[in-house]
């Protein structure tokens, strides 16, 4: 019976998820154009060698690491703050939740375009606001300065996904029984102590979920750099997937694109594994 219910899903996952990954690994080890005809010549790690010796690959690798490991921790802290703030009953709660969740529902590529307009070097409203409050003296081309472009991209992604983290953490907060806080209060624990010794430990599984759900997409960022900066100026905001995508679909280096894709897959899996090993606690029943 279980087999009957699971067969479609398992077949599906093997055809659409596992087989393609295997095929990508296969492609990464073979020479020749993948499309339209397959020439199957085993070249070993040749594509990996040329990817790993490419400075622009390493540039995109570091850009991606910075992008991921700056944005995710900030999102977690801000998300926790937002979750703690709205974790109570108040008038207009659901309207506020919709408003706060809105950035998450916004398509990344559309978001990228909206912000490229907001950050516009001449007519951008961000420039205007910063001048009005006296932070800037004249309009600044946020997206054409290599250092600031990456920071701007970080800002946009944090703006977009903090709300999602907040919602996930809010779910975790809601599942903590009130009597634990009551007990802590009776024992004389301050609000801060309650947070450290009751809230945070019990939030761990949910934090793990949020971390994985945020790190994986951040590590595969494509739409945001594509729409916001196009990877530039120079290659200052070229993420791994953007680099691999242009390698594959612009330069038609399928073998190298596949090698890069395999590397992305491996690194993503390792990051997830580290998260799970540090944070996962088997359910106690």
């Amino acid at each position, binding site marked *: 019976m*279980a087999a009957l*219910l*699971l067969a479609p*899903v398992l077949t*599906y*996952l093997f055809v659409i*998820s596992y*087989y393609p*990954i295997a*095929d*990508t690994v296969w492609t990464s080890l073979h020479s020749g154009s993948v*499309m339209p005809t397959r020439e199957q010549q085993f070249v070993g790690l040749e594509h990996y060698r040329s990817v790993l010796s490419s400075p622009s690959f390493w540039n995109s690798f570091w850009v991606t690491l910075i992008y991921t490991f700056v944005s995710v921790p900030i999102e977690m802290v801000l998300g926790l703050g*937002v979750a703690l*703030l709205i974790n109570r009953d*108040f008038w207009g709660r*659901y*309207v*506020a*939740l*919709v*408003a*706060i*969740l*809105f*950035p998450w*529902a*916004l398509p990344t*590529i*559309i978001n990228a375009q*909206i*912000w490229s*307009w907001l950050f516009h070097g001449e*007519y951008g409203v961000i*420039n205007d606001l910063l001048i009005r409050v006296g932070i800037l003296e004249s*309009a600044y081309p946020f997206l054409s300065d290599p250092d600031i472009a990456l920071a701007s991209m970080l800002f946009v992604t944090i*703006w977009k996904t903090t*709300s999602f983290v907040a*919602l996930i953490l809010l*779910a975790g907060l*809601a*599942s903590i029984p009130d009597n634990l806080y009551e007990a802590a*209060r*009776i024992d004389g624990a301050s609000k801060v102590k309650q947070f450290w010794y009751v809230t945070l430990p019990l939030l761990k*599984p*949910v934090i*793990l979920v949020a971390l994985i759900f945020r790190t994986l997409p951040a*590590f595969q960022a*494509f*739409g945001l750099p594509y729409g916001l900066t196009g990877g530039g100026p120079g290659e200052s905001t070229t993420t791994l*997937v953007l680099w*691999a*995508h242009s390698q*594959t*679909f612009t330069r038609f280096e*399928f073998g190298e*694109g596949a090698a890069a*894709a*395999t590397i*992305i897959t491996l690194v*993503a899996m390792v990051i997830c594994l580290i998260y799970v090993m540090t944070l996962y606690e088997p359910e106690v029943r």
Partner: protein
Amino acid sequence: MSSKTHDPTSSVADDQSVFDRFDPHRVGEQLGFYGSVVLLCLVSFFPIIWIFLTSIKPSTEIIQFPVQYLPSEVTLDNYVMALQQAPFLRYLINSFIVASGTAILCVVLGSMAGYALSRLDFRFKLHVLMIVLVSAMLPFFGRLIPLFDLARSTGFLNSYLGLIIPYSAFQLPFAIWIFQAYFKELPDSLEEAGLIDGLSHIGVLFRIILPVSAPAMATTAIIVFIYAWNEFLFALTFMTEDSMRTITVGIALYQGEYTYPWATISAAVFMSIVPLLLLMLFFQRKIVEGLTAGVGKA
């Protein structure tokens, strides 16, 4: 107020009575709280408010600096332009079909697997769970080229199914997770009654469990719908014909084909967001409660 802060045993009930009397500290806290919430909402909504304002401005007022915040006159020209210069309505319809199809497929397959994983005992259960979980962690880009190849050789490029099939596969782990978390909470008596009445497990699932699972179905459907509506990488690669593009791709490529017409883009962007906004307003509770039910038990 002072006694409250020094008394660690004060409970919620005490807070309430303190609030009933007039208490400046409490009022201040409330003001601070609502102030923060309103600020948060403003920060969240600011970009789209700005896009809306841009979309109804005459084009001369869009490229002004210092910025002109409110339009001197409201115009719908930009919307007319958007609809005339690119088939944005067509894109919207394409997105709608793809997103709905993905949502339906995920609900059907996700509920089946979720039922098996939460209410049935069988060998290899842990293995199946692992297969589902790991597939959720596989990067999308690693699957792009082979799936593109597959779609091309099977004729699925530039077809709705060409996107619905991969999107569903990517979202299935999430759907299964939501359904199994929800099903776990249902009382055993529900299906026992059905089994005694002679229904098979599949009969129990479709006749008894699913009819009471509207919350899980709605959550899954909405979140999967939003995902499919928003996806860009696969939509960009698989839909090479203009008439098959989804709205995200349509808007993204629009600015390349014409020289940055911000007014028209703003109008198109705003049109593309209205469906999402409506969805969120109508189903706010389902989104929040559904995720709460699922994540709380993770």
